[in-house]
Each structure stands twice: as C-alpha cells, then as structure tokens.
C-alpha cells in the first residue's frame, strides 16, 4: 500500500490528483456529445485556438483562466458562425482556424524569455502546479458545466439524435449547438492544468469512445465514461510520479489503453468476440455442409 499512499503525502500531488479526477470526469461526460456528434476534430481545434487567449492574458499579466475563457467563447461562436454559411466545408474551416490560432499563440508566447517551459506546460499540462485557488476554480466550473448538461439533458439529446423532431418541437437548435460549443470551450480551459491544450482532445474523445463500446444507452455511457476518465487520471498520475513523465501524456496513454482493451474485449462488440463468433459460425456451416446419405 506504500506505493499508493507515498505520492499522496505531498500537498501538490493531492491537489493534482483531485484536479485530474475532476477534469477526467468532466471531459468524459461532455466528450460523450463530442463523440456522438462527430466533433472530435472541432474539439481539438478549439483547444488549440485558446492558445492566443492564454498568451495575451499571460503577456498582460492578467488572469490566464479569464483570457482562456474569453478566447474559448470567441472561437466557439466563431466556428459556429463560419460553419453556418456553408461556403467552406466545416473540415476546412476548422483546419484553417486551428493552424492560424496555434501559430498566433506560439508567436505571442515566444516573446517571453521562458517560453519553452511555459509552452510545454500550456500544451501538455502542469498538474503539479495546481494551487488551492486553481482547485476551487476547477471544481466550480466543472460543477457548473455538469449542472447545465443535466438541466438540458432532454434538449441536447433531441438536438443530437433527431434534427427533425427538434424542429417539430420548436427547440432552439442553433442556440443549443452554440451552447455545446461554449461548454466544450469551458471544459478545455478547465483542463489546461492537468492535461494541457495539446491533449485535452484526447480526454474528450477516448473515455467516451471506450464507453460507447461498453454501453447501450446515453446515461450509462456518460457514467462509464466518467469512471474511465477518473481512473485514467488517477493511474496516469501515479505513472507520471513513478516514471517521471509528463502527467498529461501518462493520463492520455492510460485512457488509450482502456480503449484498446474495450475494442478487443467488449462483450458483443469487441474484436475478439467477433472473431470467435465467426469461427463458431464457420464450424457450424461446415458441419451442416456434410451431405447426409
């Protein structure tokens, strides 16, 4: 048990662990919508697009979180706006914004002397730097986002599943879509410290994708995704402590490990089951093919 308790003796590890678990759960739940609505690329682009906001806040010596949040919301609405007119394909629009904002952010940050270290932290997380205030902010924002998801569960479900019913029920579809983008922006900002801008997309996509293979209904998918996100964060942090690797990467690799396990062994949907079923089916077929005299 020493192996498990030793890192938790340190205050920074306790805070980091709490932050990582909250972020893991939050990303997983919101990530269910990202996966089901095919927004993985969009989520990643939004994460990178926050970089200039962070850079500007940093340079102006203002609150990083505020700058990130402002940039996130601007980008969320911007992507929503760009993809509405239909002159460029959504894929292309995202690709362009992605590269442009990333370059702008890096350019701004490179003006600082310690830019290499700062950039690494922003891109890949600095979970050991989580302060008590940071923890409070993460907890508050996470609770807020989860509350919105619960309150608007029905409406987000219909908008994601059946656009025709959404129109028939007179749901404000565009508004809800923009709201979802803003929620994703907030999630990205909350995840800055634990996994960083570069890897938050993975935390949005991978636990939810794993849960998709293991469940059949959305509520259970969200629950399983949350559990997987939390577990990956805890295990990842332990790995990063003992193996001395960046926390964000360790967490994401753990989550990906879960995914491949599910991909292979998920009941009824896993690859292993499919191959077994095929073999059984082929055996039965060859038995039946034996002619009876």
């Amino acid at each position, binding site marked *: 048990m020493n192996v498990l308790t030793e890192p938790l003796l340190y205050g920074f590890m306790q805070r980091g662990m709490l932050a990582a678990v909250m972020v893991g759960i939050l990303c997983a739940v919101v990530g269910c919508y990202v996966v089901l609505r095919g927004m993985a690329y969009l989520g990643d682009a939004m994460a990178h697009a926050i970089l200039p906001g962070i850079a500007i806040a940093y340079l102006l010596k203002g609150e990083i979180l505020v700058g990130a949040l402002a940039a996130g919301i601007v980008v969320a609405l911007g992507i929503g706006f760009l993809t509405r007119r239909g002159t460029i394909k959504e894929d292309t629009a995202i690709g362009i914004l992605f590269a442009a904002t990333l370059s702008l952010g890096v350019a701004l940050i490179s003006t600082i002397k310690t830019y290499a270290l700062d950039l690494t932290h922003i891109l890949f997380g600095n979970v050991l730097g989580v302060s008590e205030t940071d923890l409070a902010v993460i907890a508050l924002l996470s609770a807020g986002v989860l509350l919105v998801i619960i309150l608007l569960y029905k409406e987000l479900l219909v908008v994601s599943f059946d656009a025709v019913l959404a129109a028939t029920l007179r749901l404000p579809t565009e508004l809800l879509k923009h709201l979802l983008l803003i929620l994703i922006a907030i999630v990205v900002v909350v995840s800055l410290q634990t996994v960083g801008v570069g890897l938050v997309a993975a935390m949005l996509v991978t636990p939810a994708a794993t849960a998709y293979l293991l469940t*059949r209904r959305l509520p259970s998918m969200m629950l399983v995704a949350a559990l997987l996100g939390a577990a990956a964060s805890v295990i990842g942090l332990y790995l990063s402590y003992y193996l001395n690797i960046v926390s964000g990467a360790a967490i994401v690799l753990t989550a990906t490990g879960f995914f491949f396990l599910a991909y292979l062994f998920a009941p009824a949907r896993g690859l292993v089951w499919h191959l077994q079923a095929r073999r059984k089916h082929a055996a039965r077929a060859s038995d039946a093919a034996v002619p009876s005299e």
Partner: protein
Amino acid sequence: MAVRSPAHLQVNDVSVTYNHAARPALEHVTFGVPEGMRVAVVGPNGAGKSTLFKALVGLLPIQRGEILIHGVAFGAHQECVAYVPQREQVDWRFPVNVQDVVMMGRYGALGWFKQPGKHDRAIVARCLEQMGIAPLAARSIDELSGGQQQRVFLARALAQEPHILLMDEPFTGVDTTTQAATLALLDELKTQRVTLIVSTHDLNLAATHFDRVLLLNHRVIAYGAPAQTLTSENLLRAFGARAVLIENKIVVDECCPPEEERIESESE
C-alpha cells in the same frame, strides 16, 4: 388520451420554393381540414407531398401564404402537431433504446428543465402497447427491423398526444404487420378525433380509409370526398403521363422517384 379541443388546420395560398430552384415546389396551396378529419394526400412522385408536410411542421420556410391552427399562425403550437417523416434521418447507432425514443415524444409537453415522471412513463407504455412493440422497449434501435423502427417513431408521435398527426407515406415499403398496425392506429385515432393527414401512393386506401383526399401536383388539383376527387379526369390531370386509361380503369405508374429533396433550413 386526454380529450382536448381538437384542432382546425387552415392552409391559405401557401407557396414553397427550394433555394435556387427554377419553379416552386408548391404553389397557391389552399385547403382547410376540420377537426378530427382524415385526409389522404395523393399525387405523383415529386408532386410536393413531402414538401407540404415539412412546411406544415415548420421544417421548411414558406415564401407566401399562411398556415393557421385554431385560427392562430403556426409556431405557437409546438405540442399540437406530430410528424412522422417517410425516412427517419437519425443516427441509428446512437445509444438509445425504444423506450428512450418514444419518451422523446413527451418532451414538448414537459418543457424545459422538467424530467419525465410516472404520468409520462404510463403514456409511453400505452403507446408502445398500441403499436405492438411493448416487448421491444429495452432494445437498441439499431437492432430493429425497418417496420419495427417505423412503429417506434409512430409510437413517439402518439406519445406527443397531438391534435394533428402528419404521416409521410407510412404504408410505403413496410412489412404487412406494420401496415396492419398503422391501419389500426388510423382507426383508433379517428375515435379520439385526432386530425390525420397522411400521404400515400395507395389510391384504394385513400378511397376507403379517409374522409377527404387532397390531390396534389405542385398545386391542388382537387380536394374533397374520395368519390368526388378521385375521378378519371382529376387523376389524369394530376398524374399526367404516368396515368393510363385501360378499359375504363385508371392505371397509375409510380416509378422514377425524384432526387432527394434537401431540407433548406439545415445548416450542416
């Protein structure tokens, strides 16, 4: 089903044109449907039947005219109208089961922030029973046959407890069990005075199961009781080259469906 005051639908001089289209899909469409009436919408492929339904539900903007329910302009009555399209464009691999889908029909009545309760669950159970799919309640929707899926969406429309039910070709391309269930549903809804507007290719069905027939080909060719509407003259006018008079009987050829109509208001 609670008996509320049934609706009167009035369509006045409605025109619908798709973006960049040369001619309107629907022109000067005017008709009124009294409470509890069953109307069959009949016409050749591409006549604008689906377009009419989408306009009635608010999925397509109308360029001219007005649609009134209870005498009030459409838009204020989200609980009034339920719509079952010809082909559901949903993500079949979405993690929902049959009960989840039918429960969505209750969301209009629930409004924002309220969660479904015992009353809603009872209604959902009854609608599943009515469409003969109660044993399938816990199944994922991608495990169902085409006919079963159709019945799920019919059950959902029922769960909305609508005043007006629109069905776009519910009898086309489904198995006989589903056809029978749908017919039984039409009879049941008649007793509950739900206004029904159903499009179909089956002229026999239109003549025998409906109070009025709306014969459509971009414009209203005829509207009235089946005997008055489904005359050789009207059918030839509506179906044009696709109708042939053989030994005093009209034979209608329903081949060559048009390209998929886009939903103009969709932004993705």
